[in-house]
């Protein structure tokens, strides 16, 4: 119900009559979204309505010169339930959604499950809007021995009724014609209070066959369910499926991620070469391009995740997986569906948080979003490798163990936090775990692509607005106030000129790199970020952090992977591309009193802090978007920071108490 969603386009072409607004309603898993995708294709977007925690998709198409706007309401079992999706449907029917009353309701009925669909039809009919019915899953119904008669159903219901299949694109034109007919000549609507017997009679008269009220036996589904929902075998299958999915996400996303990085790198260097050196160039290259690149680089992982999730959901397997995982997750106050977002967060918290939309209960969903960033994402890996190498330079086994421990610590923190939140701020009864297990079927590739496209657009829109603004602010506090080149750097530059004159090009290059490093170090220490680092250093002192480590920790609140490059600038002289080389340089770094900068207690405290702290501004922006409030993003940030600090403090104290040096 966007009204004039695209007024420019509309004004420049032949004026069309006002669009016909059609709200699509149906039970879950009836093929409603496939039908919507077929009707609207890419001309659709996800819409979050004010005051609603559920979303609907909106799109349009033109049929016979008349524009139709469709709204794909979330699947509901009944519109009178006290559930967010039912409320959204009620609001739509009452014209409270974006202030628009739908011109017609399109009820999507599953031919294999007519009783339940007809109950919903009966409730929608009470709204008195013109209606049409799309009868889906007719191939499945006929395969089960039912005989489906859409014409007879249309007569009984008193509304146009068309067989349609969104996946195959069957019945789309007749369906559009039926909607036209319903709007132009509103049919007689049946009374809403009709008895339950009417539903059985309607089913019997329009869906005949040996199993009129549904198929009782489905051996293949029986066998698959026996495996997929088995307490042990089901868990093994689920772990295998997830392992395959995440292997694909990590591996297949590598190439496009590299290409995106290279593309933004090329763009940055081209702009830097064309524009004169100065604040504007720095803003564009380091702030805008650097900031956006740091977020957009995750787009391939996000697309792959949502594409694979859509395929899995479409096959009917994901509901079984949620069912299996519910046994474990419910101990921590989370539903089975939370497992996928939490696992996804190991790739990146952004898609993990976005995939929490799979969870129907708002409190469960919120709890999952709040704890998802505890899971160790790929951006943490670089920091883990560096700190673990510093801790165990001689033992690959212990380093590996510590590395795995980081993942375990993050997961444990997530689950414990979820349990705490569900017993305190998110207290209340969860929706009872009752899941419809849809029939197994081949996935709809087209639908998966469209769903992925939709998610990608949402993500890019976020990256181009909130995240971009945050990046520019962070660039500014890192880049200002500008520092003059220090005397030492000027002297090194002069030596570089002498080396050049003496024909010693290699030495000149090395000296210039040293001068540049020195300049960057001074700039970083004197910037607003440096000032903030200096001001908060006393807070981090109990963790063993000096002013340089504090600045590194503070700057990595933009993105934690910044830690390594910041430390390279503040301590080292290398190019920061080689893990071992950086670790060697950092291992030799000392404090002002001559003691090691990265002693064991400090390294352990830093490692624990980086495992648990939320140092990723895009994550906060996505949390705000998904929860609709900065309040939850602030809570997430505050809670994770406090937990990270306290556990890091504890870890440092423990190491010192165990004689690990201090």
């Amino acid at each position, binding site marked *: 119900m966007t009204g004039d969603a695209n007024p420019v386009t509309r004004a420049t072409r032949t004026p069309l009559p006002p669009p016909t607004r059609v709200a699509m309603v149906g039970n879950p898993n009836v093929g409603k979204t496939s039908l919507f995708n077929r009707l609207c294709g890419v001309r659709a977007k996800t819409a979050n309505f004010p005051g609603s925690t559920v979303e609907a998709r909106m799109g349009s198409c033109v049929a016979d010169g008349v524009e139709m706007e469709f709204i794909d309401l979330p699947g509901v*079992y*009944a519109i*009178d*339930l*006290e*559930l967010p999706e039912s409320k959204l449907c009620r609001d739509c029917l009452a014209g409270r959604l974006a202030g628009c009353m739908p011109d017609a309701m399109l009820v999507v009925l599953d031919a*294999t*499950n007519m*009783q*339940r669909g007809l*109950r919903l039809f009966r409730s929608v009919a009470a709204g008195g809007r013109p209606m049409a019915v799309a009868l889906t899953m007719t191939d499945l119904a006929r395969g*089960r021995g039912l005989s489906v008669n859409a014409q007879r159903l249309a007569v009984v219901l008193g509304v146009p009724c068309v067989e349609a299949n969104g996946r195959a694109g069957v019945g789309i034109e007749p369906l559009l014609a039926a909607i036209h007919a319903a709007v132009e000549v509103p049919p007689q609507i049946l009374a809403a209070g009709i008895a*339950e017997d009417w539903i059985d009679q309607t089913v019997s008269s329009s869906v005949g066959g040996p199993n009129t*009220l*549904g*198929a*009782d036996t489905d051996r293949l*589904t*029986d066998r698959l*369910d*026996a495996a997929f*929902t088995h*307490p042990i075998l089901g868990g093994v299958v689920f772990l295998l499926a997830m392992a395959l999915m995440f292997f694909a996400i990590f591996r297949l996303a590598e190439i496009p991620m590299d290409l995106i990085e290279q593309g933004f790198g090329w763009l940055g260097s081209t702009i830097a070469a064309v524009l004169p050196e100065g604040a504007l160039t720095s803003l564009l290259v380091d702030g805008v391009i650097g900031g956006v690149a740091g977020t957009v680089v995750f787009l391939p992982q996000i697309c792959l995740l949502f594409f694979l999730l859509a395929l899995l959901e479409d096959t009917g397997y994901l*509901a*079984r997986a949620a*069912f299996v995982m*519910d*046994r474990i997750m*419910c101990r921590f106050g989370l539903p089975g569906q939370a497992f996928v977002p939490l696992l996804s967060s190991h790739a990146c918290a952004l898609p993990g948080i976005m995939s929490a939309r799979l969870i129907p209960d708002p409190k469960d969903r919120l709890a999952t979003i709040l704890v998802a960033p505890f899971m160790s994402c790929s951006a943490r890996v670089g920091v883990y490798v560096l700190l673990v190498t510093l801790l165990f330079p001689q033992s690959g086994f212990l380093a590996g163990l510590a590395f795995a421990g980081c993942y375990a610590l993050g997961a444990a923190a997530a689950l414990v936090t979820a349990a705490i939140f569900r017993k305190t701020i998110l207290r209340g*009864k969860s*929706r*009872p*775990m*009752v*899941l*419809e*297990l849809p*029939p197994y079927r081949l996935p709809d590739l087209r639908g998966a692509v469209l769903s992925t496209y939709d998610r990608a657009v949402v993500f890019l829109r976020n990256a181009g607005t909130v995240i971009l603004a945050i990046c520019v602010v962070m660039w500014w506090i890192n880049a200002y106030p500008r520092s003059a080149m220090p005397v030492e750097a000027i002297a090194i530059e002069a030596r570089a000129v002498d080396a050049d004159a003496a024909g010693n090009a290699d030495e000149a290059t090395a000296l210039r790199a040293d001068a540049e490093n020195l300049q960057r170090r001074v700039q970083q220490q004197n910037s607003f970020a440096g000032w903030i680092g200096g001001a908060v250093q006393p807070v981090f002192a109990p963790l063993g952090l000096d002013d340089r480590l504090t600045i590194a920790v503070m700057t990595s609140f933009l993105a934690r992977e910044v830690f390594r490059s910041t430390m390279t600038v503040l301590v080292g002289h290398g190019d920061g591309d080689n893990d071992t080389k950086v670790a060697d340089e950092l291992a030799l770094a000392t404090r002002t009193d001559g003691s090691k900068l990265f002693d064991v207690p400090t390294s352990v405290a830093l490692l624990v802090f980086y495992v648990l702290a939320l140092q990723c501004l895009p994550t906060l922006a996505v949390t705000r978007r998904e929860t609709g409030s900065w309040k939850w993003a602030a809570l997430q940030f505050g809670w994770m920071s406090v937990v990270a600090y306290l556990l890091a403090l504890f870890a440092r104290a423990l190491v010192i108490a165990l004689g690990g040096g201090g």
Partner: protein
Amino acid sequence: MASTVSDPLPIRLPLTQLKRGDRAMVADSSLSDEDRAVLRAMGLDERCTFTVCRASAGGPCIIQLDATRLGLSPDLAKRIMTRPCECPSADCCAQDAPKP
């Protein structure tokens, strides 16, 4: 899922105590009105006969009613009392079910 007036079979068992392949009808439950309404909307009410696809005393259950399969958490399933059906057809038990 309120208590029924007529009760064709005296045996009542929690859903979690049924075995795979058992047919039963919902007799009663100690669920909240809200949960009851959700289950009713999903098709699980006193009028339907269902078949147990998976059940265990402490674990989740899967039941099939008509063409739909529902997975129920143990907490939910143990609060649903059922009346086992001996007959192979859904219709014979359904005739004894209370009319809403």
